[in-house]
Protein backbone atom coordinates (compact mmCIF):
# COMPACT_ATOMS: atom_id res chain seq x y z
CA UNK A 1 0.00 0.00 0.00
CA UNK A 2 1.41 3.35 -1.04
CA UNK A 3 1.96 6.03 1.58
CA UNK A 4 -1.04 8.33 2.05
CA UNK A 5 0.05 11.80 0.87
CA UNK A 6 0.09 14.69 3.36
CA UNK A 7 -1.73 17.15 1.10
CA UNK A 8 -5.14 16.36 -0.42
CA UNK A 9 -7.58 18.96 -1.77
CA UNK A 10 -9.38 19.24 1.62
CA UNK A 11 -6.13 19.97 3.47
CA UNK A 12 -5.28 23.08 1.47
CA UNK A 13 -6.48 26.51 2.60
CA UNK A 14 -6.90 29.85 0.90
CA UNK A 15 -3.82 32.00 1.50
CA UNK A 16 -1.65 29.04 2.51
CA UNK A 17 1.95 29.31 1.29
CA UNK A 18 4.72 26.84 0.50
CA UNK A 19 8.39 27.93 0.32
CA UNK A 20 10.26 26.96 -2.87
CA UNK A 21 13.97 26.20 -3.25
CA UNK A 22 16.70 27.14 -2.74
CA UNK A 23 18.04 25.98 -6.10
CA UNK A 24 21.55 26.89 -7.25
CA UNK A 25 21.83 27.29 -11.02
CA UNK A 26 25.12 26.29 -12.65
CA UNK A 27 26.53 27.23 -16.06
CA UNK A 28 26.68 23.51 -16.93
CA UNK A 29 22.93 23.07 -16.29
CA UNK A 30 22.08 26.17 -18.34
CA UNK A 31 24.19 24.97 -21.28
CA UNK A 32 22.89 21.37 -21.06
CA UNK A 33 19.23 22.45 -21.18
CA UNK A 34 19.85 24.99 -23.94
CA UNK A 35 21.84 22.52 -26.06
CA UNK A 36 18.79 20.29 -26.20
CA UNK A 37 15.84 22.71 -26.24
CA UNK A 38 16.86 26.35 -26.76
CA UNK A 39 20.12 26.57 -28.66
CA UNK A 40 20.42 30.36 -28.80
CA UNK A 41 23.87 31.93 -28.18
CA UNK A 42 22.91 33.78 -24.95
CA UNK A 43 21.93 30.43 -23.37
CA UNK A 44 25.07 28.61 -24.56
CA UNK A 45 27.97 31.03 -24.25
CA UNK A 46 29.06 33.52 -21.58
CA UNK A 47 30.39 36.13 -24.04
CA UNK A 48 27.27 35.96 -26.21
CA UNK A 49 25.12 36.28 -23.08
CA UNK A 50 27.07 39.36 -21.93
CA UNK A 51 26.60 40.97 -25.34
CA UNK A 52 22.83 40.32 -25.28
CA UNK A 53 20.04 42.15 -23.44
CA UNK A 54 20.24 39.40 -20.78
CA UNK A 55 23.69 40.52 -19.58
CA UNK A 56 25.33 37.13 -19.00
CA UNK A 57 25.04 33.39 -19.61
CA UNK A 58 21.28 33.14 -18.98
CA UNK A 59 18.94 30.19 -18.56
CA UNK A 60 16.32 29.59 -21.24
CA UNK A 61 12.93 30.74 -19.95
CA UNK A 62 11.72 27.17 -20.48
CA UNK A 63 14.58 25.98 -18.29
CA UNK A 64 13.53 28.45 -15.57
CA UNK A 65 9.96 27.10 -15.79
CA UNK A 66 11.28 23.53 -15.59
CA UNK A 67 13.44 24.35 -12.54
CA UNK A 68 10.40 26.03 -10.99
CA UNK A 69 8.38 22.84 -11.62
CA UNK A 70 11.00 20.81 -9.78
CA UNK A 71 10.85 23.22 -6.83
CA UNK A 72 7.03 22.89 -6.65
CA UNK A 73 7.31 19.09 -6.90
CA UNK A 74 9.72 19.04 -3.96
CA UNK A 75 7.77 21.61 -1.91
CA UNK A 76 4.25 20.25 -2.41
CA UNK A 77 3.28 18.02 -5.33
CA UNK A 78 5.27 14.86 -4.54
CA UNK A 79 3.64 14.61 -1.11
CA UNK A 80 0.15 15.46 -2.37
CA UNK A 81 -2.77 13.97 -4.29
CA UNK A 82 -1.90 16.10 -7.36
CA UNK A 83 -3.29 14.73 -10.61
CA UNK A 84 -1.48 17.14 -12.90
CA UNK A 85 -2.50 20.55 -14.21
CA UNK A 86 -4.53 21.47 -17.29
CA UNK A 87 -2.46 24.57 -17.98
CA UNK A 88 -0.87 27.84 -16.90
CA UNK A 89 -2.73 31.17 -16.98
CA UNK A 90 0.42 33.21 -17.46
CA UNK A 91 4.14 33.10 -16.93
CA UNK A 92 6.31 36.21 -16.89
CA UNK A 93 10.06 36.04 -17.19
CA UNK A 94 10.70 39.24 -15.26
CA UNK A 95 14.51 39.10 -15.14
CA UNK A 96 17.19 36.82 -16.56
CA UNK A 97 18.35 33.83 -14.50
CA UNK A 98 22.15 33.90 -14.75
CA UNK A 99 24.77 31.22 -14.12
CA UNK A 100 25.60 31.19 -10.39
CA UNK A 101 22.19 32.49 -9.29
CA UNK A 102 20.36 30.85 -6.38
CA UNK A 103 16.59 30.70 -6.81
CA UNK A 104 13.99 30.64 -4.05
CA UNK A 105 10.30 31.34 -4.13
CA UNK A 106 6.82 30.92 -2.81
CA UNK A 107 3.61 29.22 -3.91
CA UNK A 108 0.42 30.79 -2.57
CA UNK A 109 -3.04 29.26 -2.84
CA UNK A 110 -5.41 31.90 -4.23
CA UNK A 111 -8.52 29.86 -5.07
CA UNK A 112 -10.03 26.46 -4.23
CA UNK A 113 -12.94 24.94 -6.15
CA UNK A 114 -14.44 21.47 -6.04
CA UNK A 115 -15.13 20.01 -9.51
CA UNK A 116 -18.85 19.88 -10.28
CA UNK A 117 -18.45 17.08 -12.78
CA UNK A 118 -15.98 14.99 -10.79
CA UNK A 119 -16.67 15.01 -7.02
CA UNK A 120 -13.33 13.28 -6.26
CA UNK A 121 -11.36 16.21 -7.73
CA UNK A 122 -10.75 19.80 -6.65
CA UNK A 123 -9.04 22.63 -8.51
CA UNK A 124 -6.32 24.51 -6.63
CA UNK A 125 -5.26 27.84 -8.14
CA UNK A 126 -1.76 28.91 -7.15
CA UNK A 127 0.24 32.09 -7.66
CA UNK A 128 3.93 31.31 -7.79
CA UNK A 129 6.89 33.67 -7.51
CA UNK A 130 10.56 32.84 -7.92
CA UNK A 131 13.33 35.26 -6.99
CA UNK A 132 17.12 35.31 -7.09
CA UNK A 133 19.70 35.80 -4.31
CA UNK A 134 19.19 39.60 -4.54
CA UNK A 135 15.46 39.23 -3.88
CA UNK A 136 14.61 40.25 -7.45
CA UNK A 137 11.63 38.39 -8.94
CA UNK A 138 12.70 36.35 -11.98
CA UNK A 139 9.49 34.40 -12.68
CA UNK A 140 5.81 34.91 -11.90
CA UNK A 141 3.27 32.31 -12.84
CA UNK A 142 -0.33 31.37 -12.07
CA UNK A 143 -2.00 28.05 -12.66
CA UNK A 144 -4.69 25.68 -11.42
CA UNK A 145 -3.87 22.08 -10.54
CA UNK A 146 -6.15 19.10 -9.91
CA UNK A 147 -5.98 17.35 -6.54
CA UNK A 148 -7.90 14.31 -5.31
CA UNK A 149 -10.03 14.83 -2.22
CA UNK A 150 -9.10 13.20 1.09
CA UNK A 151 -12.11 10.88 0.70
CA UNK A 152 -10.85 9.70 -2.70
CA UNK A 153 -7.53 8.48 -1.25
CA UNK A 154 -8.82 7.18 2.11
Amino acid at each position, binding site marked *: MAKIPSWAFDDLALGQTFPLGPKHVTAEEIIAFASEF*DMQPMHLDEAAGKASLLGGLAASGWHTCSMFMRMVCDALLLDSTSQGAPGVEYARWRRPVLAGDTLSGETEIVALRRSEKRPRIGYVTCRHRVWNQHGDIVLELENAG*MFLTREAVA
Partner: protein
Amino acid sequence: MSALDQFLQIGETVVIGSHRFEAEEIKAFAAKFDPQPFHLDEEAARKSVFGGLCASGWHTVSVWMQVNLRHLEAVGERAWTGEGPRPAFGPSPGFRKLRWLKPTYAGSTLTYSRRAMHLRSHVARPGWNILTSLCEAHDETGDKVLEFESDVLLKTG
Protein backbone atom coordinates in the same frame (compact mmCIF):
# COMPACT_ATOMS: atom_id res chain seq x y z
CA MET B 1 -0.29 44.08 -46.08
CA SER B 2 2.70 46.03 -44.77
CA ALA B 3 6.28 44.89 -45.30
CA LEU B 4 6.49 44.22 -41.56
CA ASP B 5 3.32 42.08 -41.51
CA GLN B 6 4.67 40.17 -44.49
CA PHE B 7 8.07 39.72 -42.83
CA LEU B 8 6.39 38.38 -39.66
CA GLN B 9 3.85 36.24 -41.60
CA ILE B 10 1.01 37.77 -39.56
CA GLY B 11 -2.07 35.54 -39.64
CA GLU B 12 -0.33 32.65 -41.37
CA THR B 13 -0.16 29.24 -39.65
CA VAL B 14 3.34 27.80 -40.11
CA VAL B 15 3.92 24.10 -39.39
CA ILE B 16 7.38 24.08 -37.84
CA GLY B 17 8.09 20.37 -37.38
CA SER B 18 7.38 17.16 -35.46
CA HIS B 19 8.85 15.27 -32.54
CA ARG B 20 8.28 11.69 -31.35
CA PHE B 21 8.32 11.34 -27.55
CA GLU B 22 10.14 8.15 -26.55
CA ALA B 23 9.65 6.61 -23.10
CA GLU B 24 13.32 7.06 -22.20
CA GLU B 25 13.45 10.82 -22.91
CA ILE B 26 10.11 11.34 -21.10
CA LYS B 27 11.60 9.70 -18.00
CA ALA B 28 14.94 11.54 -18.31
CA PHE B 29 13.24 14.96 -18.46
CA ALA B 30 10.89 14.04 -15.60
CA ALA B 31 13.71 12.76 -13.39
CA LYS B 32 15.33 16.21 -13.57
CA PHE B 33 12.36 18.54 -13.56
CA ASP B 34 9.01 16.87 -12.89
CA PRO B 35 9.44 13.59 -10.97
CA GLN B 36 5.73 12.79 -10.59
CA PRO B 37 5.04 9.03 -10.88
CA PHE B 38 2.99 9.29 -14.11
CA HIS B 39 6.01 10.84 -15.90
CA LEU B 40 8.59 8.40 -14.48
CA ASP B 41 7.23 4.88 -14.29
CA GLU B 42 4.94 2.86 -16.62
CA GLU B 43 3.32 0.85 -13.81
CA ALA B 44 2.56 3.92 -11.64
CA ALA B 45 1.30 5.76 -14.73
CA ARG B 46 -1.13 2.94 -15.58
CA LYS B 47 -2.72 3.38 -12.14
CA SER B 48 -2.90 7.18 -12.43
CA VAL B 49 -5.63 9.34 -14.00
CA PHE B 50 -3.58 9.38 -17.22
CA GLY B 51 -3.58 5.58 -17.61
CA GLY B 52 -0.12 5.48 -19.18
CA LEU B 53 3.36 7.01 -19.17
CA CYS B 54 3.09 10.59 -20.46
CA ALA B 55 5.47 13.52 -20.91
CA SER B 56 5.70 16.42 -18.45
CA GLY B 57 3.85 19.41 -19.86
CA TRP B 58 7.08 21.40 -19.48
CA HIS B 59 8.79 18.81 -21.67
CA THR B 60 6.20 19.19 -24.45
CA VAL B 61 6.52 23.01 -24.44
CA SER B 62 10.33 22.89 -24.25
CA VAL B 63 10.25 20.75 -27.40
CA TRP B 64 8.11 23.48 -29.04
CA MET B 65 11.11 25.79 -28.61
CA GLN B 66 13.52 23.17 -29.95
CA VAL B 67 11.37 22.53 -33.04
CA ASN B 68 10.86 26.28 -33.57
CA LEU B 69 14.60 27.05 -33.54
CA ARG B 70 15.40 24.12 -35.88
CA HIS B 71 12.72 25.39 -38.25
CA LEU B 72 14.11 28.94 -38.20
CA GLU B 73 17.58 27.59 -38.94
CA ALA B 74 16.29 25.41 -41.78
CA VAL B 75 14.34 28.16 -43.56
CA GLY B 76 17.05 30.81 -43.10
CA GLU B 77 16.52 34.56 -42.74
CA ARG B 78 13.32 35.91 -44.26
CA ALA B 79 13.70 38.62 -46.86
CA TRP B 80 13.23 42.17 -45.50
CA THR B 81 11.72 44.52 -48.08
CA GLY B 82 10.69 47.39 -45.79
CA GLU B 83 12.47 50.66 -45.06
CA GLY B 84 15.17 50.97 -42.42
CA PRO B 85 17.11 48.20 -40.72
CA ARG B 86 15.90 44.64 -40.71
CA PRO B 87 13.72 43.92 -37.60
CA ALA B 88 15.63 42.02 -34.89
CA PHE B 89 14.19 39.60 -32.33
CA GLY B 90 15.03 39.93 -28.63
CA PRO B 91 14.14 37.90 -25.51
CA SER B 92 10.64 36.76 -24.58
CA PRO B 93 8.84 38.40 -21.64
CA GLY B 94 6.54 35.38 -21.13
CA PHE B 95 3.46 33.53 -22.29
CA ARG B 96 -0.28 33.22 -21.51
CA LYS B 97 -3.17 30.76 -21.74
CA LEU B 98 -1.06 27.61 -21.85
CA ARG B 99 -3.41 24.63 -22.11
CA TRP B 100 -2.37 20.99 -21.98
CA LEU B 101 -5.48 19.57 -23.62
CA LYS B 102 -4.49 15.91 -23.85
CA PRO B 103 -1.66 13.82 -22.37
CA THR B 104 1.34 13.12 -24.61
CA TYR B 105 1.89 9.38 -24.18
CA ALA B 106 5.18 7.58 -24.81
CA GLY B 107 5.49 6.83 -28.53
CA SER B 108 3.26 9.67 -29.71
CA THR B 109 4.41 12.19 -32.27
CA LEU B 110 3.48 15.85 -31.92
CA THR B 111 3.39 18.24 -34.87
CA TYR B 112 4.04 21.83 -33.84
CA SER B 113 2.88 25.08 -35.41
CA ARG B 114 2.91 28.81 -34.77
CA ARG B 115 0.87 31.73 -36.06
CA ALA B 116 1.99 35.32 -35.53
CA MET B 117 -1.14 37.16 -34.36
CA HIS B 118 -0.34 40.80 -33.66
CA LEU B 119 2.39 43.30 -32.94
CA ARG B 120 2.12 46.14 -30.42
CA SER B 121 4.55 48.82 -29.20
CA HIS B 122 6.45 48.14 -25.99
CA VAL B 123 5.43 51.06 -23.77
CA ALA B 124 8.53 50.96 -21.56
CA ARG B 125 11.11 50.36 -24.33
CA PRO B 126 11.03 52.82 -27.25
CA GLY B 127 11.89 51.13 -30.56
CA TRP B 128 10.85 47.74 -29.28
CA ASN B 129 7.56 45.93 -29.97
CA ILE B 130 5.92 42.79 -28.63
CA LEU B 131 4.94 40.12 -31.15
CA THR B 132 2.26 37.70 -29.90
CA SER B 133 2.04 34.27 -31.53
CA LEU B 134 -0.32 31.34 -31.09
CA CYS B 135 1.67 28.14 -30.63
CA GLU B 136 0.06 24.72 -30.95
CA ALA B 137 0.79 21.00 -31.15
CA HIS B 138 -1.40 18.22 -32.55
CA ASP B 139 -0.91 14.47 -32.16
CA GLU B 140 -1.03 11.86 -34.94
CA THR B 141 -4.82 11.49 -34.59
CA GLY B 142 -5.24 15.21 -35.33
CA ASP B 143 -6.23 16.12 -31.75
CA LYS B 144 -4.84 19.35 -30.37
CA VAL B 145 -2.56 18.51 -27.45
CA LEU B 146 -1.31 21.90 -26.38
CA GLU B 147 -1.65 25.60 -27.11
CA PHE B 148 -0.24 28.82 -25.69
CA GLU B 149 0.19 32.48 -26.60
CA SER B 150 3.83 33.44 -26.66
CA ASP B 151 5.33 36.95 -26.62
CA VAL B 152 8.69 37.94 -28.06
CA LEU B 153 10.39 41.35 -28.29
CA LEU B 154 11.05 42.77 -31.75
CA LYS B 155 13.22 45.82 -32.50
CA THR B 156 12.10 47.88 -35.47
CA GLY B 157 13.06 51.14 -37.22
